């Protein structure tokens, strides 16, 4: 497609973006409150332990932390033990962690070895063809986390992990329990 030169195109883009940004700011929320959020759509993935698991198996019953990770992502490997600690501490109160590996199919053996080595207990699902991550986290930012309340709505989303973030996650989860 033939388009006008840069000097003509850039202001057009900027105008569109400005209009979009002006049109929506009053309706957006950085961290949705427990009274609202976007609905969590269902999905079904293969579990690392065998069989299929659907999000709807937990939706409405527990507060769910869904975490996208990969074996090649160093911050993800720092985060996994912290997620296990959260589940150990808050599981009895109705909290569940679902970790979704987005490693490619060729690395599936590495996922199992890593999970076993870390003695990681929460549910691990495999999204080898990026079907689910492309819906929730299309840029495949790693790690990427969302917290779903018992009202089936997504209340919090978070990209990345640095030491100390687990405190914020705990605060968010406890606010929904």
């Amino acid at each position, binding site marked *: 497609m*033939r*388009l*006008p*030169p*840069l*000097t*003509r*195109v*850039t*202001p057009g*883009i*900027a105008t569109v*973006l*400005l209009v979009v*940004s*002006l049109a*929506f*700011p009053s*309706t*957006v*929320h*950085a*961290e*949705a409150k427990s*009274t*609202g*959020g*976007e*609905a*969590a*759509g*269902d*999905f079904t993935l293969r579990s690392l*332990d*065998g*069989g*299929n698991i*659907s999000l709807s198996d937990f939706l409405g019953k527990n507060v769910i932390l869904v975490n996208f990770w990969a074996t*090649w992502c*160093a911050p993800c490997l720092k985060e996994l033990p912290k997620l296990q600690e959260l589940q150990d501490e808050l599981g009895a109160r109705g909290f569940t962690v679902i970790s979704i590996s987005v490693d*490619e*199919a*060729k*690395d599936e*053996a*590495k996922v199992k*070895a890593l999970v*076993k*080595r870390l*003695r990681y207990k929460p549910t691990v699902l495999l999204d080898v*063809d990026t*079907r689910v991550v*492309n*819906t929730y986290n*299309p*840029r495949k930012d790693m790690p990427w986390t969302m917290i779903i309340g018992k009202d089936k709505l997504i209340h919090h989303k978070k990209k990345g992990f*640095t*030491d*100390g*973030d687990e405190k914020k996650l705990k605060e968010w989860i406890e606010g929904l329990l």
Partner: protein
Amino acid sequence: MHEAEVVTPMPTRQGIRTRVWTAGLLAAMCVTVLAAPASAIKLGQEKDGSALHGASLNINETFYYKYNLFLDDDPDDERPPPFAFHEFVNRTTVDLRVKKFSFGVQMDLAAAGPGCGDSTFREKFAERHGEDTDCTPPNRMLGDGWEDPITDMAIFQLEKVFAQYSGRNVNVQLGDYYAAFGRGIALSMVKKPEIDQDTSLRGVRFDLFTDRADWTLLGGITNPQQVSMELRNQGLDKTDWAALAGTSLKLRPHRKFEISLHGLGYELQELPSWSAGGTVGVSDIGSALDLFFEGDWFFYGIPEDAADDAPDIGHAFYATATVYSGPLTLLVETKRYKDAQHLVRTGPVVPIQYNNPPSLEHELSVTEDINGSIQSAEITGIRVQPELYFLKTNTTLTSSIAVAYDQEPHPPFSNQHELTLHPWIGLDQPIHLGKVDVHLKGDVGYRHDFPVRRGDLSGLSEEEQETLRSEFLRHTGLLHYSLDLGVSFGVHALELVSTYKRHAFTLEEEECWTLASGQEHCDRDDGWVALENALSYTLMGKYTAALHVDFTDDPIVQNVSNRGAVGNLNYDKEWRRSTYLGGEIILKPVSNLELYAFFGSQKSGVVCTGGACRTVPAFTGFKTRVSINF
């Protein structure tokens, strides 16, 4: 060349006004977004039962701007450096989700400047090249493939469009989607955002899930992403698509036992090809052992004018065993591939690879220069990886040894077979010292490729046989290490990441060359090193400043005078050593906004992730990226 077709305005006063207008709009937009931090736009009422209950609209905008400077590598040659130029990429992704339905698009726009419509640039060009020389812009957009290699100063692409229904038992996707069967030996087409490589299938995918069986049916055409953040656009021919269709059936007679069958039809180089395969997996045998096996067979369509040795059949076998007991986790992988990696559709710039089989290799280290174990027409290998994890000290010790016999020649390094040995060890140790957390992660390894003179020379001409009998047997080696040291205390985090690779190969005869110090050096051992270091400081997880110092004397990734172009891929003894220094900042003031800026030099080279590689250009100058989520 199509200079005459370039239609551009005269940016005199109007151009100045345009720039002011643009800058003003962008600034206003940033202020607006900063004032209204967002992650998603809620469309529906919160009252359950409403049609748009919980519906959300996610918009992501990423702007990428590069100002490319050129250094005059040789001031004595009286040739001035090329003109500086701008590059601009804008990527917009829009994702609407309503209950179990989602809809999305990705739009890219790439532009470059200055063009010959810019009177200032025209004057500079005429001053340097003379009034009679046709004006040529320093950088232009590439069109769709070779047919129309140069289009204009800007292109727009609607890269991806999809609609999806995702339910408990059914998943339906229309438009662009991704797919993988088994362990990726027959099919693996997934998005690789780490290297901005994104080839999807455009068509229909249907999945049915039950407790005992899953069924997938898919069909579509290949749709590679045209615009890359680093390379503006790829010059891919989007009209030269290839069709693919396949199905997969998984059966689970028991929760711990799964068997699957899959079949695929591919269009490779306008000829149909086929594959059929299956997997068997058993997990948690005695709570300590997992087993997996996959076998695939490939049947290639052969054109009439193909070479006599063009393969028409291929096969691949891959198996793993994972043992976990106490502190020990042991992973054993083995493979045998014969003509299993011809699932490639060649094309301009970037070929489309339909599969991505397990390589058994330490891919981050080896993919850059030694691809024998990643892409080989005939290879047999095994890898053993024991890991020990000590709960008390939170220490992980990893070791791995891979052995492979590669029967495909890889000229120019070797026309013979090769036996590869690759051991490496790694340590992962987090330490808590009061309020300070230290995390040390590193590995070191060495790979050696031993040449093995080919025994069976039948089918070759007398001349070829003689060449192979007398050819010098060249050894190649690769020493590598990586180190990641992180220290965090309170809201402060420091990280040092360093990688090093030393490639070496034996020369047939002693050669002499001049060292950087000016001294003459003679040796039979030649090679190069690549060292990359990054030191970063992050405050509150939001503000990061980093310094990069890279060095290479690799002739394959030399900087070609930093001319913003892809490196010279021909081996050249006359390379010059290069050090690259750059600084960057990354700011995330609010959750929906990320600002990135880089100033300095960046070496050209191959960026590899998970076995897939892409060449990125050398760069000197300033670049910035703004990413916003609405």
